[in-house]
């Protein structure tokens, strides 16, 4: 299978797409049309058929013909049956000859569907607002997307231990092509594997600054996906404490946490970075804070000691330090972004509802994932969270299909 970027729509293409409902319509005189429609839309508004236009213009034998929908039909055979009295009066007043017609039941979700619908009866079509985002990826964009997806998968591979595989999440600034945060699942008590990978535009260097290296990844042996947090969110309690002879563990063991799925950890790191790079004005400042990189590291340390005093969350703070050290550019833009506005996330597996909603909360712009999550996936498999209209933010979702033998 080739590499391919596939848009995952926010709602399933409706199986009812070709369904129609029958209405009572009539040809009308052009000069009466305006008045008639105005009265009809007050008398019998077409509830649930807002996409259907009330009037149809067609040409038969070179003559323009106007037809108007009077009301929904009750009886397929008899147009006059069950018609409201005031509509009957209109029919008499304008001397109409009602007939049964069929109109599309639901609004078109794509331009193609719309063209097809209009054969029956004209409808209106409102393309989704982000349509320009989903259709075109120029060569450069595609290359960057595939590059970051590869990085996420490499991170998954490098996180492996005893052939256990974890999900990975990378938050990316697409305009600067820079990694903002990256993380693996931390649901189990494995050695800390919060990896910081730095990638240059040339797409060919990949450094992973932790105890593991990609080449350590064993190519043989059965991989187990049991520990991919989003695939099996409920199985954490059955996990046994890991006993590992690896020397790495003694240095950096982090505790298990059933909710530390890769996406949540990455969001936490991005937020920590945000706090460090964009200090709030009223916060007490280091004297050296404005002067660049070293001071930022020192403010990290300061923050680290503060936090560990409060919460003792040493693990994630350790990660922050390693992250900040390899930030490609520090605070070029001093205006503080709102959460992860404008940033993309790359995940090896489709996120569960917890992670998908967390990414909505943090205002991620686009989500890319490589493998679907058939039992718990929230962006196409079980739910389509990005299509829920009630929410205050919507990201666009893509599946990047990758060669199956990538593992």
């Amino acid at each position, binding site marked *: 299978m080739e590499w391919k970027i596939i848009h995952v729509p926010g709602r399933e293409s409706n199986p009812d797409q070709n369904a129609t409902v029958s209405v009572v319509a009539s040809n009308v005189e052009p000069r009466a049309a305006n008045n008639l429609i105005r009265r009809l839309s007050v008398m019998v508004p077409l509830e649930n058929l807002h996409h259907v236009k009330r009037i149809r213009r067609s040409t038969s034998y070179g003559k323009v013909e106007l037809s108007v929908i009077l009301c929904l039909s009750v009886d397929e055979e008899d147009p006059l049956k069950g018609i409201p009295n005031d509509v009957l009066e209109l029919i008499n007043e304008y001397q109409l000859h009602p007939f049964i017609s069929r109109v599309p039941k639901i609004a078109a979700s794509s331009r193609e569907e719309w063209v097809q619908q209009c054969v029956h009866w004209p409808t209106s079509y409102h393309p989704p607002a982000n349509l320009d985002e989903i259709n075109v990826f120029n060569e450069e964009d595609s290359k960057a997307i595939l590059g970051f997806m590869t990085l996420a998968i490499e991170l998954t591979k490098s996180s492996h231990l005893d052939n256990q595989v974890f999900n990975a999440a990378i938050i990316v600034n697409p305009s600067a092509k820079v990694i903002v945060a990256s993380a693996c699942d931390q649901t189990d008590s494995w050695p800390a594997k919060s990896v910081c990978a730095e990638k240059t535009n040339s797409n060919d260097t990949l450094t992973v600054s932790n105890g593991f290296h990609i080449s350590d990844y064993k190519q043989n042996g059965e991989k187990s996906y049991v520990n991919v947090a989003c695939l099996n*969110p*409920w199985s954490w*309690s059955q996990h046994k404490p890991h006993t590992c002879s690896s020397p790495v563990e003694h240095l950096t063991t982090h505790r298990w946490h059933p909710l530390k799925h890769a996406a949540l950890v990455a969001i936490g790191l991005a937020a920590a970075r945000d706090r460090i790079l964009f200090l709030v004005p009223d916060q007490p400042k280091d004297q050296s804070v404005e002067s660049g990189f070293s001071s930022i590291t020192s403010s990290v340390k300061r923050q680290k000691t503060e936090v560990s005093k409060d919460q*003792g969350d040493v693990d994630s703070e350790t990660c922050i330090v390693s992250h900040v050290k390899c930030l490609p550019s520090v605070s070029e833009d001093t205006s503080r972004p709102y959460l992860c506005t404008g940033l993309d996330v790359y995940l090896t597996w489709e996120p569960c509802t917890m992670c998908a909603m*967390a990414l909505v*909360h*943090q205002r991620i712009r686009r989500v890319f994932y490589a493998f679907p999550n058939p039992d718990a996936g929230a962006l196409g498999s079980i739910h389509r969270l990005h299509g*829920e209209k*009630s929410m205050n933010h919507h990201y666009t979702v893509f599946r990047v299909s990758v060669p199956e033998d990538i593992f």
Partner: protein
Amino acid sequence: MGSMKEDDFQFSMTFMGLALEQAKFALDNLEVPVGCVIVEDGKVIGFGSNRTNETRNATRHAEMESIDKLLEQWQASGLSQSEVAEKFSKCDLYVTCEPCIMCATALSILGIRAVYYGCANDKFGGCGSVLSLHQSEIKDVYRGFKCTGGIMSSESVTLFRNFYEQGNPNAPKPHRPVKTTQ
């Protein structure tokens, strides 16, 4: 039996009152006012309030805050994964607003016994408003949790109203001009 129900009701009011205190604490700290308490055997063993503005992490909801504190505590006292799961299965959560889709999933992952909430969350509620994650049954793996809403909801709503009147300092600049009340 009737008196049992009355007791339950009194219980709920007491615990929701404590959750509301947490929400007020959040409000005083310019945070979205949501608070919660976690109850085991009729005793409050955990609490938390929203910290999304302070942390700039929009996932730091009251539920997540209280869960993290408990997890840390339990692990520090040496409990294993299965023992912690056992603990959660005996815990109830009282929260001033319906858990969002993220928190509802989190609570189901932990296997909490029951959730009592104040006002509904029309935008992203995960316990009936948008999705019904408390009812999600996953084969033999998971059976959902009991969920009751509408407990002292007007108090929760009042706190929200106070918050939005004072203005969310962290909200992004609106695309359209916002009506200002004189």
